[in-house]
């Protein structure tokens, strides 16, 4: 079962969902709108090998916007810290973002229960599109789990900025 906007607000107030900062105007009927943060991460050139750490740069998203071109791929962050020890968050683009041709994740929409942090957005542009810090970009919905809960203790816990992939840790 998916939580309604009113239920998300109630659970944030009850401390069972973390959304920080929380702004009631970002609630919608079945979700909460997420804003884009201030940083983006781009991998350096070359073939990416999941068994190795790939070099990258982190930059500020300019206040007057960052122009993405069709085919561009970069990582960014949500402005908000989100998560829950009680419900499962799922990330979606805002419909307007999708209509502009911008993916906000690459087939990885599901967040683990107990994972609290800034969402790393996987931005992939299919058309030229401009992004701005603090823009309303994505949304998060919350889903009721069935069964005993074991909280997330993974490698991306407490993320505070765009987090590059750590698949290489699977192979050490």
């Amino acid at each position: 079962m998916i939580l309604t906007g009113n239920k998300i607000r109630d659970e944030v107030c009850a401390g069972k969902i973390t959304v920080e900062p929380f702004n009631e105007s970002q609630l919608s009927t079945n979700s909460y709108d997420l804003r884009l943060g201030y940083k983006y991460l781009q991998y350096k050139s070359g073939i990416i090998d999941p068994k190795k750490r790939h070099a990258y740069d982190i930059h500020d998203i300019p206040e007057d916007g960052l122009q993405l071109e069709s085919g561009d791929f970069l990582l960014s962050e949500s402005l908000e810290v989100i998560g829950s020890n009680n419900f499962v968050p799922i990330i979606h683009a805002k419909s307007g973002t999708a209509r502009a041709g911008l993916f906000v994740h690459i087939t990885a929409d599901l967040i683990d229960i107990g994972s609290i942090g800034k969402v790393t957005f996987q931005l992939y542009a299919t058309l030229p599109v401009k992004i701005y810090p603090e823009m309303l970009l994505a949304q998060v919905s919350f889903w009721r789990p069935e069964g005993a809960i074991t909280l997330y203790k993974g490698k991306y816990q407490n993320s505070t900025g765009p987090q590059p992939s750590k698949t290489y840790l699977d192979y050490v």
Partner: protein
Amino acid sequence: MILTGQEIINSINSGDITISNFDCSRINPNSYNYLLGNEIKVFSEKDTDGSPKFDTIILNEEGYVLRPGSMYLGVTDEIIGSSLYAMSLIGRSSMGRLGLFLQISANLGHTTSSHQWTLELHAARSIRIYPKMPIGQVSFWKNDGDVQCLGKTYALYNRPTERLPT
């Protein structure tokens, strides 16, 4: 409702979920990490009727580099299915962070399907893939209503399978 990791384990023990070569260490708080099977299909050329033709490649330990702009077909190493729950098959966030799509917006697995799922691989950046790498996640969802299988098509296949003629 989405099953927690513990409930996925319980359902495997009760037979309500099938995952071949099940390994408890690949359980997440609300999903299971599946592996990439060793066979992929690579687009080669357009057939005379305009449909895509594929070459089959068997992955070895050196892996294989996917290039941007094309779509490759892969397959889960495991047989995954459930007679009781619906499924959502997605990529791991660790692979999404490397720019690798694991399917093209078709994540829903129907209740009663049980097979090796075809994956639609699309790379935003050139990336090397390896056989048996943990590449995606499957979650399980409770149904509301009577379950009735209304036919199977791709669920009958256990190898990377392109679109069938309609």
